[in-house]
């Protein structure tokens, strides 16, 4: 069977899996961004906590995603939940790192200036620190997006959604008819999705970053 024919004959199935994949990654990214930024907001003022967070982030990224998702089956069972947990976990790490760098990089004079104007702590965070750190945070989100596109493929192992199903099916019947095509379809699909999402994030970055701090 040829690749073209494989894709044509299963186009609706592939499209559905691709949308599921994208949806899993996008939603996990949003959740991961919120969690990572909140964590960074809590720790970025303390040198020690910053160190701890960076160490956790570095070590966390070395955990094999395949092992972690397997371990998640015990508490969360099969399906979407363990997939989301793992994808969010991996997505949060680079964002956390960048968010800390971004927030710590805000000029202390500006914070003092904001306090001097009578802005509240929360006001300073939302209206000064976050917008100024946003480009750095967003570049963390883009790194995360690339990385967890691949991680999300592993979700199929726990019967989660996405393009990983084609890869696992193909690998399990390697040598059989259409096995290679299945693996290639899954893999190329993931790569294409990653490119599309990156462009999307680039656009979001343009729209959400103030002209005053764009490079």
């Amino acid at each position, binding site marked *: 069977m040829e690749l073209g024919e494989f894709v044509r004959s299963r186009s609706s199935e592939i499209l559905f899996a691709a949308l599921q994949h994208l949806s899993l990654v996008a939603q996990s990214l949003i959740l991961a961004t919120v969690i990572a930024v909140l964590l960074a907001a809590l720790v970025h003022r303390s040198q020690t906590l910053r160190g701890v967070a960076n160490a956790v982030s570095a070590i966390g990224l070395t955990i094999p995603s395949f092992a972690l998702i397997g371990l998640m089956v015990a508490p969360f069972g099969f399906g979407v939940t363990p997939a989301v947990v793992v994808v969010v976990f991996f997505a949060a790490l680079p964002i956390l790192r960048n968010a800390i760098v971004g927030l710590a990089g805000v000029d202390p*004079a500006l914070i*003092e200036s904001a*306090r001097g*104007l*009578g*802005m509240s702590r929360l006001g300073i965070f939302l209206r000064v620190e976050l917008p100024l750190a946003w480009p750095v945070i967003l570049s963390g989100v883009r790194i995360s997006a690339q990385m967890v596109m691949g991680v999300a493929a592993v979700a199929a192992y726990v019967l989660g959604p996405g393009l990983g199903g084609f890869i696992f099916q193909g690998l399990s019947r390697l040598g059989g008819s259409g096995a290679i095509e299945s693996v290639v379809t899954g893999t190329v699909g993931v790569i294409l999705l990653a490119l599309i999402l990156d462009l999307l994030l680039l656009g979001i970055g343009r729209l959400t970053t*103030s002209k*005053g701090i764009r490079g």
Partner: protein
Amino acid sequence: MADIDPRTETADEQAPGSQTTGSQPADAQTADEQTDRETTGRSIWLDNVTKRYPGQKRPAVNGVTLEIPDGQVVMLVGPSGCGKTTTLKMINRLIEPTEGRIVLGGEDVTSIDGDELRRRIGYVIQAGGLFPHMTVAQNIALVPKMLRWDKARIAARVEELLDLVGLDPDVYRSRYPKELSGGQQQRVGVARALAADPPVLLMDEPFGAVDPITRQRLQDELIRIQHEVHKTMVIVTHDFDEAVKLGDWIVVFREGAQIVQYDTPERILAEPADEFVENFIGSGAALKQLGLRRVREVEAADAVVAKAGANAAEALRRAEAAGHDHVVVVDERGRPIAWPSRRALSRMTRLPAQLDPAMPLVGSGATLNDALDTMLVSSAGATLVTGRSGVFEGVVDVETIMDAISSAREAAAERSDDAPVGTNTGAVAAVPAASDEQRPANPGDAAVGPVSDD
């Protein structure tokens, strides 16, 4: 009383009265001085304020009692690390005092909400501290927005403030800080601090980050703005010349925020309290006094004036008759264009109609320092003075300036100012004894005054 703001809130109403009980003569004096200028400022009292940092033996600020009169510019000067910035930041409680009280316009603000207090006090830091991700208009609108002004009012206020600081609203409103020069950023910083019309403006080394020429222009600008807004301003600087130029009063600090002298620039220059102040002033105190006086304050001498293109021999005759060495040639609008000597005149038939660029010339608003500089550059020993629209007013020579300076020094030495209170309760000896004697209410009484009612 001239110093009551029409917008005074109920909480403040008892203030002037209760303060007067402590220092009646001083208040009467203030009222006299200020009948011709409506002040929108509020007085500030630092009452026995101390700041100790944990792990440090000596307090950064030790028992400072300081009166900042309303509508006046008070400069805090001293070497770096002397606690002047800490003192400033305790006024709006960016740094919380360990001990002592802060009284703003008669209201004890030591324990009210700090953010709420800071919205009532303008604050400007070095280089303006503008938020780079907001436009000029957004930066200025920050405090009004926090105070929930409506949109139209904010927009109108932004316009008004940009005009006030000399930036065209249509050009600069939607620019980002990175698109402005350092001086323009500083102007927007001042506009932002003035946005909600706070009675008090605090500035921490406001002009420290700009080049000398821009700094001079910004200083002039600030003087002009203060003439319009009459705020109470407290400005920290390490530049004594800046303090002399901007300040109505100067506080000289040494380590631990010890107040060495609190007086007018004229008096500090004429009579430094001790060697420390003398060293701090640096050399040329007399020259610095030249910067305090304007050309219009000294008497300009008359001169023989002739129209451009007129008969030179006739002008020469008039100069000889008046005993003058020079003739001022003016154009049809009375603006000087040349200043030939009798010798030069004797070689002419017609008076020159061409502008002589080498002619020494200053505006009547220039300082005596500028005038002297002009004289030295042109080596004429005198300079022409022009008034409004560049019309010729008179001639000022070196002798006039010398006389002005020596009379100013005498006047400064004799003047018995009732200087505002500034002491360190821990070390009263550091304060010139004179200010205690001259002031009927001693600092202790006066400091307790504002709160005696509550």
